[in-house]
């Protein structure tokens, strides 16, 4: 385990060095994700500001929720973007071979292979939104509501990673699963809106099956309603750990089944 902690900075440093050999490209990459999210956010602003409030949800409340959802999503984006590659074409091209010949955990090698700084654009906007809209909420900030929010956000990062890995691992059987992965990943967009505007079917999926809302929407909802977030935090932690176990097992079984392309 210690070995991995030692190795990871080297992997990342190598990746950053390669990428920073084109500095302008790096900046454009970050700016592009920043702009994409600013456009999405402006659209939300223009949409919501056309009416006084959406079932008690003012724009300030939605903006804070938006920022909160962006942070775990972007952190996952920065560190584990290589998982997309597994669902996309790694299996068909037999590219996983290079991870199997080194005496290191193949999943570690896969994840450490990429440091996707593009996600920093989303992260910057997320933090910015929390700083701007946090004080505008009618909430007394204290340890008892900030800490559980941070914990929920922390687990949400791993929830993204686990869900991505589960659906990417399906590619071991189907050769390619990126379309399915995209659909499932896109479900996380639902969490940016008050869940009551969606019908029951969507709610059930987002709470019990692909539980993005559990980790990102409900903590904020509880916060606004002044309820304790601690029990929810426990549930989020338990569900995330379960998802991680499922994801790792699926990856492990798939990897055993994996045969390189060719012979």
């Amino acid at each position, binding site marked *: 385990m210690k070995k991995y902690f030692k190795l990871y900075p080297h992997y990342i440093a190598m990746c950053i060095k390669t990428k920073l050999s*084109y500095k*302008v*490209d*790096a900046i*454009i*990459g970050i*700016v*592009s*994700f920043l*702009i*994409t999210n600013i*456009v999405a956010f*402006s*659209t939300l602003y*223009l*949409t*919501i500001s*056309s*009416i*006084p*409030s*959406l*079932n008690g949800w003012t724009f300030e409340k939605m903006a804070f929720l938006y920022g909160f959802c962006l942070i775990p999503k972007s952190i996952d984006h920065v560190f584990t973007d290589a998982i997309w590659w597994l669902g996309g074409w790694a299996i068909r091209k037999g590219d996983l071979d290079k991870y199997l010949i080194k005496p290191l955990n193949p999943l570690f090698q896969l994840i450490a292979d990429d440091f996707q700084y*593009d996600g920093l654009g989303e992260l910057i906007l997320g933090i910015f939104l929390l700083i701007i809209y946090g004080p505008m909420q009618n909430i007394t900030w204290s340890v008892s509501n900030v800490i559980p929010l941070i914990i929920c956000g922390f687990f949400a990062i791993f929830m993204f990673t686990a869900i991505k890995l589960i659906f990417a691992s399906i590619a071991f059987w189907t050769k390619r699963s*990126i*379309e399915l992965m*995209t*659909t499932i990943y*896109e*479900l996380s*967009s*639902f969490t940016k*809106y*008050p869940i009551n*505007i*969606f*019908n029951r079917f*969507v709610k059930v999926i987002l709470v019990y099956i692909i539980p993005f809302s559990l980790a990102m929407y409900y903590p904020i909802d509880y916060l606004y309603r002044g309820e304790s977030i601690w029990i929810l935090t426990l549930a989020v932690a338990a569900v995330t750990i379960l998802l991680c176990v499922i994801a790792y097992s699926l990856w492990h079984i798939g990897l055993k089944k994996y045969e390189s392309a060719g012979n």
Partner: protein
Amino acid sequence: MKVLLKRYMKRNPFKKYFAFVKGGILQAFSYKFSIFGWIIGDFIQIIILCFLWIAIYQYSPTTEINGFTMPMMLTYLVSARIVSQLVFSGDSFWQIGEDIRYGYIANNLIRPIDYRKRLMTMDIGNFFGIMIIAFIPIYIVSITVLHFAIGAMFPTWYNIIFFFISSLASLLIISSFNFMIGQLAFFTGALFGIGMIKNELLMFLSGGYLPIAFFPEKLQAILNILPFTSVLQTPNFILMGNYGITETIIRILIQFGWALVFSVLASLTFKGTIKHVTSVGG
């Protein structure tokens, strides 16, 4: 007669470009997989949009928001997403970008074919290809669903014809625009990022995410002078039957005006770019 026809074909300068139109159509057909990926990716966004707007109208004190009723709004948003796939279907940006990046541009310039015309004719081909395999089936399904769900109107036959002309004009504008932006490949390799910035801003400013009527008034005034609204909102409104016949014709003329302006701009910038190519070659 046959000989005459052959001679005519030989002289016809457009003939060689028809091959690229055909190539563009076939290229679009080969993208079946990515179109499938786009449908399921966009599908969730569209569902979210519909839920969100139904809720917005529920909590709105008036039945009309900025001149849009709920069925109109949903039809506009769904249709804008589908129309955007058609008018943004050109591949010029990537073609010129990669040609510059990998150096194929030099080869392309010595061929007895005008490079710009070639890319534009390929874009036209892509347009027809996407129209056949994606736009027509997806639009028919969506408008039928919207018709039975919220009473959206089917387009009239003449609006369909006007839409066709209008969206082709949009394609020409975008094709020149992409050609201009693609030349940035000389300065950076981050084509993916530039493409993303370009697409997002185009989509937003042309009314792809929201009708321009929802923008702040000052921004609306600026956007009405700029060409963006011509690109997506115009064909979409034509298809929805929002314009009378005279207004439709005026709007289409404005579109072709912009197509001309952008075409000239693209040619001018490309002249500068070609000089750059020779200077790099030594």
